[in-house]
């Protein structure tokens, strides 16, 4: 920026010969030194020239009306701009309360379901005892473990995977606005790892206490991973029941390779611990309303209705 050539302008010439080199930047100086509306001075000069006092009284109706308007303006603005904040806060707390209430309903219902399920299985066992049919009871147990309707215990391993260090939620606690989310496990990662475990010979799998059954979906909502439609938070502990070779076979198959790539490429943390006894909880399997067995165990005649 080259300074414009000093050009004598009439206004400064009348003030004197001195020309301020910073004239072009005098906006702030003007603002600071002459903040008063020059109109006041001009009006006062006019009145003085006409032989009247420099100031007019403070009792003119125009002034009072204007001040009433100013006060009104202030009050209305304060009111209008303050209320939406309070209203949005109220909506927020209402939503939070509603979420909490529903969560409590869910928890209470889950407890009822679990208690009822225990009763049902106790009654089932009793009924089978009466029938003195141990083969049927064994068969039921096997099926329950296989379908996930019953809790299972056995030797296996616990594979714990976690997001990369430092990829937590951002300062606002909102994972969605976090930019450095490459170190975050996604539902796809978990799907591939769990599929690798199944392929390695896992017999029962649960993630953070959520049993993985034939009806389980590992998906995501926002950034949270849902298993059985429950949001899980890291670290994800995958409990697996299976033989002693599961760990080695998992290391060797595609799921294990994928996990290794995550560990080396994205700092995902993993920890695989072989356990003598792993407990996998029962899944909240919904009752089947429409599906029926193609060959029912009691009647071998195939009465298929609406089969595939």
């Amino acid at each position, binding site marked *: 920026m080259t300074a414009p050539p000093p050009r004598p302008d009439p206004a400064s010439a009348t003030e004197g010969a001195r020309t301020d080199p910073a004239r072009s930047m005098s906006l702030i100086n003007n*603002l600071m030194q002459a903040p008063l509306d020059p109109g006041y001075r001009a009006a006062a000069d006019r009145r003085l020239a006409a032989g009247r006092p420099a100031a007019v009284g403070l009792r003119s109706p125009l002034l009072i009306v204007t001040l009433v308007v100013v006060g009104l303006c202030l009050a209305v603005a304060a*009111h209008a701009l303050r209320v939406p904040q309070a209203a949005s806060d109220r909506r927020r707390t209402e939503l939070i309360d509603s979420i909490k209430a529903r969560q409590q309903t869910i928890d209470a219902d889950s407890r009822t379901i679990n208690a009822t399920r225990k009763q049902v299985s106790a009654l089932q066992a009793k009924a089978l005892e009466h029938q003195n049919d141990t083969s049927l009871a064994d068969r039921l147990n096997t099926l329950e473990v296989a379908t996930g309707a019953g809790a299972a215990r056995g030797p296996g391993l616990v594979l714990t995977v976690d997001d990369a260090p430092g990829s937590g939620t951002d300062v606002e606690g909102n994972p969605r606005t976090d930019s450095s989310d490459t170190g975050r496990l996604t539902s796809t990662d978990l799907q591939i790892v769990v599929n690798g475990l199944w392929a390695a010979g896992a017999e029962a799998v649960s993630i953070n206490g959520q049993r993985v059954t034939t009806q389980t979906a590992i998906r995501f909502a926002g950034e949270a991973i849902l298993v059985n439609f429950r949001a899980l938070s890291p670290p994800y502990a995958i409990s697996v029941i299976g033989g002693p070779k599961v760990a080695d076979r998992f290391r060797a198959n595609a799921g294990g390779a994928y996990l290794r790539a995550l560990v080396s490429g994205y700092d995902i943390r993993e920890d695989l611990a072989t356990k003598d006894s792993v407990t996998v909880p029962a899944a909240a399997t919904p009752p089947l309303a429409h599906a029926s067995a193609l060959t029912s165990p009691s009647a071998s005649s195939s009465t298929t209705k609406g089969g595939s």
Partner: protein
Amino acid sequence: MIPAIGLVVGLVIGIVVHPDVPLSLQPYLPIAVIAALDAVFGAVRAVLDGIFDDKVFVVSFLSNVVVAALIVYLGDQLGVGSQLSTGVVVVLGVRIFSNVAAIRRHLFHA
């Protein structure tokens, strides 16, 4: 004293009636308030300087509010509404503070 009573009356009316401001006008309110405050402090300083004029006050108040609203509207249309609002607040804020400083010198000689 009477103008101060007028201001208080206006405030009370606003608080009691609290009319609903249409949502489309709400972005202009903060700027209008700052402009009004600037006019009021300018008037107080003029009173203390002994050169107060009611017409100048009314005109400066109205023109301040109108120009401030115009700037915000223009900024909204250009997509720089918040930046222009900030500019208006800074300029009027500087003026308010220097007027208040002059008022303080008048009242407390400090």
